């Protein structure tokens, strides 16, 4: 039912994703192994960056996979990539985790720069179109990076970032837009 004429890596990747979505929709449990092999590095990297502790990152990833499996019927491929959807599930769970009361004690003051995630090198061969963290963040100025990190890894809204950094909301929006623009240009 799918065309097998893909030649470029992008279309090959897309085809794997379409196949995977189909299998998940069919409640094929074996698909979750493929899911893990395909996405665990990206998901684990982001979760680790948020929760900062390996054992908790592992728990969150497993919890996220359970959630993805159960709420898969609500995933709408028309609205976006599977990657975007699962990444948001993971991010939200990880952010909920760090916002939970027990986690806050002691961990909140740890600066984001000291996280384990930054000390570990990203897998270079993760994807053919993969762009290194260093290369990417070098394109952002420190203010932009700070805002993107608070929004993406801290679960802050733009108003919360404005309050946290004591900046006008307009400035936060402008910087966030500029930063995301830089990021999206890099992948084209």
């Amino acid at each position, binding site marked *: 039912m799918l065309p097998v004429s893909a030649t470029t890596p992008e279309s090959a990747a897309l085809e794997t994703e379409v196949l995977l979505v189909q299998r998940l929709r069919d*409640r*094929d*449990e*074996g698909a*979750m*192994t493929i899911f*893990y*092999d395909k996405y*665990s*590095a*990206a998901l*684990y*990297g*982001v979760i*680790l*960056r948020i929760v900062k502790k*390996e054992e908790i*990152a*592992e728990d969150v*990833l*497993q919890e996220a*996979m*359970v959630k993805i*499996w*159960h709420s898969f019927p609500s995933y709408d491929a028309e*609205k*976006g*990539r599977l*990657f*975007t959807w699962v*990444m*948001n599930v993971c*991010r*939200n769970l990880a952010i909920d985790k760090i916002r939970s009361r027990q986690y806050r004690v002691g961990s909140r003051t740890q600066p984001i720069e000291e996280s384990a995630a930054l000390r*570990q090198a*990203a*897998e270079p061969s*993760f*994807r053919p179109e*993969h*762009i290194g*963290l260093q290369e*990417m*963040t070098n394109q952002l100025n420190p203010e932009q990076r700070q805002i*993107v990190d608070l*929004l*993406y890894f801290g679960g802050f*809204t*733009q108003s919360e970032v404005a309050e946290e950094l004591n900046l006008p909301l307009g400035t936060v*929006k402008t910087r*966030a*837009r500029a930063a*995301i*623009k*830089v*990021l*999206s*240009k*890099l*992948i084209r």
Partner: protein
Amino acid sequence: MNIQEYIESGILEEYALGVLNEVERAEVERIAREHPEVHRELQQVISGLDAYAEAHAVTPPADMRERVLQGWQQAIRNTAEQEKLIQTADVPASAPLMTASASPTTPISGSDGAVVRQLSAPQEAPSRLKWLIAASVALLLLSGLGNYLLYSRLQETEANLEVAQTAQSRYAATQQAALNERDQQLAVLRSADFRPVELKGTPKAPEALARVYYNAKTNAVYVDVRNLPAPPAGKQYQLWALDNGKPVDAGMLASATAAGDSIQQMKDIASAQAFAMTVEDAGGVPSPTMSTLTVIGNL
């Protein structure tokens, strides 16, 4: 609607970051469907953030793969079992079992040869199943009751803890104040500028004993009672400084001071050769009643 303004409002970024509520999300999706520019912009924002996420990829430890996949399978099995129990509870006993479950039984095998085996589904007879359901429900109710009891105990404990903490900090503050006062008193006793004067009991009260500390430089006077008979109701001890035989009022002793509980700073005295105490009407009198002289001592 001004499309450019909408794009620059930051709402697309918020959509991509997942901070919008359901109504707001639906609205963004509707506008993106209607306006290709918005759609294009939204896609760029999303792919930018996706790329940022991917740039943070960290390959998890190899042994995590099996743990996570196994844990995941265990978790969805547990939920499936629960759902099955709930479903069968609605089905008449004569209906065939397990029709609702169509889950495949192929084991999940990983590339490294690790095999996560599926737990076999229980094949219970309908009557046993009924008992099982009844038992489960009873267990659930019990567990709910247990939770409720534990929760109220927890609440009570937390409230008690709060009370205890408040009491503790109040106590600490009082103790700190008392300690400061003692330190001050100790400084007086240790100071070389203070001369101690023993006031001994008169024949009227031979056991009575008190001490006055007098600083001739600063004129400060402290009194420290060792033993004084309790004054009659409405009476107080009054301290006198004797300067060239002339009595000068040095102040009234507080009841705690007279009982020997603490030392007390009295009125400043410019010059004195002796100190004495008499029992006077509360509030004091201008000149001492000699018949009530209780203790006296020379510098």
